[in-house]
């Protein structure tokens, strides 16, 4: 039940040792990418935000950026800004440094450097030094109880609720039994199954949060005056045999296993709890992964029926297919196959144990397919429009 990971000076545990190139604003995306492409051993994100955002919306974007920089999977950060944006690079860098005083953090501002070419050179130089320092970090043996797993299902089909999600549920239970934490998210995809989660809540207050959250989520569709079926289930879900959000949700919650629900938390909120926790995120896969990782998940297990290739830039994302047909068809992107449950060759329990074993191996450094292929999907939930 152990793995080899990085214990940070503040006690937090990372399973990767990335140097992250982080733009504070959309205008700095190209420079961030240019820096990362020059320096092996770095990763970068791109996003559409950071300027003309207001209030809680700006705060959430800022919080998610800082949380990625401060994440224990990240050794050091180069924050890139343009110079005139709402969410300033120097503020993001200072907030990361405040949370993690031990972490190397460097700021590059394109207008101050004299343009994108000089900013790229300055960032690359800082990143090169950080990668050299990062390579000296030593992994140590750590208990599985240090792990925070983000669960996700995307591109669901009718087999999601029969094979991949129940087996991920077994792996979730194994991690919780080992003292770790499991995140259930994608609130939209719990509509119609909230009474089951509420019944598993540790107390009446958490049960009430389950029902309140679903009410709030459903009210979004009501207030927009639309039928949620326009987007949920998705056209691909429907083609795969899912007829309603209720059917999708009931299959969806299997991935959270069978343990008591300890708490319900907001999008990207820091995760301090042990056991099963429900984070309020949209059903959109990449906004969900980004929120869970910002909360502190070090790794993600992502079940899929239709097939997906997404992966977090800083948290390894393990893909599990619902059918062997998909596993073979998209083998470049899918790590494990739960389709052997459908073909009768294995049980849900056996596949669940395989997923758990894979989680520990990946935590120790085994690369997932999305890492090898360089996926760095990143999307922050918006609360308000750009002004």
């Amino acid at each position, binding site marked *: 039940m152990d793995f080899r990971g990085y214990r940070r000076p503040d006690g937090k545990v990372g399973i990767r040792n990335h140097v992250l190139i982080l733009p504070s604003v959309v205008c700095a995306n190209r420079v961030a990418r240019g820096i990362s492409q020059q320096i092996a051993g770095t990763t970068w994100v791109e996003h559409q935000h950071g300027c003309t955002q207001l209030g809680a919306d700006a705060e959430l974007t800022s919080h998610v950026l800082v949380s990625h920089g401060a994440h224990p999977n990240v050794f050091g950060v180069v924050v890139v800004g343009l110079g005139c944006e709402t969410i300033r690079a120097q503020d993001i860098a200072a907030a990361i440094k405040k949370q993690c005083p031990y972490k190397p953090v460097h700021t590059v501002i394109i207008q101050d450097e004299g343009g994108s070419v000089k900013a790229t050179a300055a960032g690359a130089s800082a990143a090169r030094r950080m990668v050299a320092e990062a390579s000296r970090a030593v992994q140590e043996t750590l208990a599985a109880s240090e792990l925070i797993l983000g669960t996700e299902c995307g591109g669901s*089909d*009718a*087999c999601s*609720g*029969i094979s991949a999600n129940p087996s991920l549920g077994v792996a979730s239970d194994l991690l919780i039994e080992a003292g770790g934490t499991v995140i259930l998210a994608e609130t*939209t995809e719990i*509509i*119609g*199954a909230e009474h*089951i989660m509420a019944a598993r809540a540790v107390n009446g207050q958490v049960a009430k949060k389950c029902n309140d959250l679903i009410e709030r989520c*459903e009210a979004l*569709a*009501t*207030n*927009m*005056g*639309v*039928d*949620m*079926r326009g987007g*949920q289930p998705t056209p691909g879900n*429907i083609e*795969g*045999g899912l*007829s*309603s*959000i*209720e*059917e999708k949700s*009931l*299959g969806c919650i299997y991935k959270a296993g069978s343990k008591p629900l300890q708490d319900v938390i907001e999008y990207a909120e820091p995760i301090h709890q042990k056991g099963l926790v429900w984070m309020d995120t949209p059903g959109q896969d990449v906004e969900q992964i980004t929120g869970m990782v910002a909360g502190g998940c070090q790794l993600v297990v992502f079940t899929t*029926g239709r097939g997906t290739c997404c992966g977090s830039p800083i948290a390894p994302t393990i893909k599990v297919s619902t059918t062997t047909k998909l596993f073979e068809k998209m083998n470049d992107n899918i790590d494990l196959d739960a389709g052997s*449950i*459908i*073909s*009768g060759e*294995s*049980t849900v329990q056996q596949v669940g144990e395989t997923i758990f074993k894979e989680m520990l191996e990946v935590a120790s450094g085994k690369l997932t397919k999305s890492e090898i292929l360089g996926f760095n999907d990143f999307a922050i939930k918006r609360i308000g429009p750009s002004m």
Partner: protein
Amino acid sequence: MPKMDAVVMKPTDNVCTVLREVDPDAAISTVVNGETITVTVIEKIPFGHKFALEPIRSGAPIIKYGETIGLATKDIQTGQHVHVHNLESRRGRGDKAGD
């Protein structure tokens, strides 16, 4: 677990999910409460889709995983395909707000 052609998730379900594409008039066997039952499907059912295990009246709940996944929008016969053409979700229906 033996290879299954179709699966009924909970004993109270009134629909069954097929695990291979099924042609019209095929007799499909599945296990409910430890007993094997056989139902003849009356139309083509694509992989992963559902058929009715019993007649379902228009407006009646469609049950899978032991829970209501929507209501029938027309009378459904045993062995008929159950999907978005004859099942309607009750949730997230902003289009019906104020009705």
